[in-house]
């Protein structure tokens, strides 16, 4: 399993070098969006309005950070569970979203969209929000400020540690639960 030092935005060529199980240290700009922000993004697309950031080559981080204490750019900022964004993700991949960052399983539809549009799903360690916040050097709200922790933020990250969970070839890092070993079919 390889280790990649990547900078944003991501290109198709870079995405195709990533295999599930690879480690990624990400440097550059990523955008935060979770449940409520995704709903707004899709509403914007439906209305024919521009998105608040360039989606081509972008990475979306599923996170709702805790408030920034004085002297820090951001509070704790670990990943939230990704499946809740599954209904929105394929449409964003079709528009050029190259990666989502979160934790937990993705739907078959999202996995198919990642293969079709050359994108990956990256996992960050859940429940390590204080640690991950050390890799964020800047954060600013760029849209939907009224959503509070769910507002879209532009984050500048440095060597943000990630694992490739789903690659663009259909590969997956998550194990299949061994019900057979536990005595069930």
């Amino acid at each position, binding site marked *: 399993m390889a280790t990649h030092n990547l900078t944003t935005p991501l290109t198709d060529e870079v995405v195709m070098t990533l295999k599930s199980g690879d480690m990624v240290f990400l440097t550059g700009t990523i955008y935060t969006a979770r449940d409520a922000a995704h709903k707004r993004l899709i509403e914007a697309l439906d209305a024919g309005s521009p998105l608040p950031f360039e989606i081509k080559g972008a990475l979306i981080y599923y996170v709702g950070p805790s*408030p920034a204490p004085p002297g820090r750019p951001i509070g*704790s900022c670990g990943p939230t569970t990704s499946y809740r964004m599954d209904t929105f993700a394929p449409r964003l991949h079709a528009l050029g979203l190259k990666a989502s960052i979160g934790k937990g399983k993705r739907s078959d539809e999202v996995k198919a969209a990642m293969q079709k549009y050359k994108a990956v799903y990256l996992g960050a360690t859940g*429940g*390590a929000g204080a640690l991950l916040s050390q890799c964020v050097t800047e954060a600013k709200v760029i849209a939907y400020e009224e959503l509070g922790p*769910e507002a879209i933020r532009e984050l500048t990250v440095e060597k943000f540690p990630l694992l490739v969970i789903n690659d663009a070839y259909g590969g997956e890092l998550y194990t299949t639960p061994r*019900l057979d070993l536990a*005595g069930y079919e």
Partner: protein
Amino acid sequence: MRTILAKDISDKVAAMCMEANRKLPEDVLDKFAACHAEEEGAAKEVFRQLLENAKLSEETGLPLCQDCGLAIFFVEMGNDVHVEGGTPRQAIDEGMIRGYKDGYLRKSACDPFTRKNTGDNAPAIVHVDIVPGDGFKIIMMAKGGGSENMSRVTMLSPAQGWKGIKEFVVRRVAEAGPNPCPPTIIGIGIGGTFEVAPMLAKKALIRAIGEPHPDPAIDKLEKELVETLNKLNIGPMGLGGKYTTLDVKINVAPCHLASLPLAVNVQCHSARHKEVEL
């Protein structure tokens, strides 16, 4: 009759909300260290990050997890206690709001339909038990949404018994997979009624990791489930490994002749809770 000032309750609650979100209980930290020593590869790396995260959180005051949870309180209030200056519920709400604000903790409460954030993490979820004496004990849990979403309640048939209970729990944990931030702690409520079973399950999560159930028969069932669940190889964050669960905690209560209520409350590895007495 002992008088306790509502303000004193609020002060304690504000402080405990911050502490619970910044410092894991010793039993959880000890278990992380033991798991770190036993695991290999990606699973080991997860525990390394969790131990480092815990250290950093304690040093910097940044919360352990950005999901600082809904704030749940179990209160044991002595029958000989009078709270002056407000009800216990008001006092706890006031303290929780202050603690989440002053501690830069995330406010995660919202309207179920509009999804509009209430802005102050209120309301606190407060369960009060009246007990003999003049004590006043508060247990606070910061419960994240990711693991709560993986929890389930079901009404089994009495004939299904332990076999049915075990199968439901194992299949629930397998289906949840990497979603609830494993390795999890599984709180199980067996018996009571439709609303009692989940309360039993939630309260079960407070018992320390490794602390056996006082009833040896239940203790045996807990250990049996730990062993079975850890065969699933979901592992830390779903990456495979020896630890899918850190512990299983069961609480039981009598139920109706016709029923076998079962609740499975999933707790993520960041098992944040804190207890104080006034």
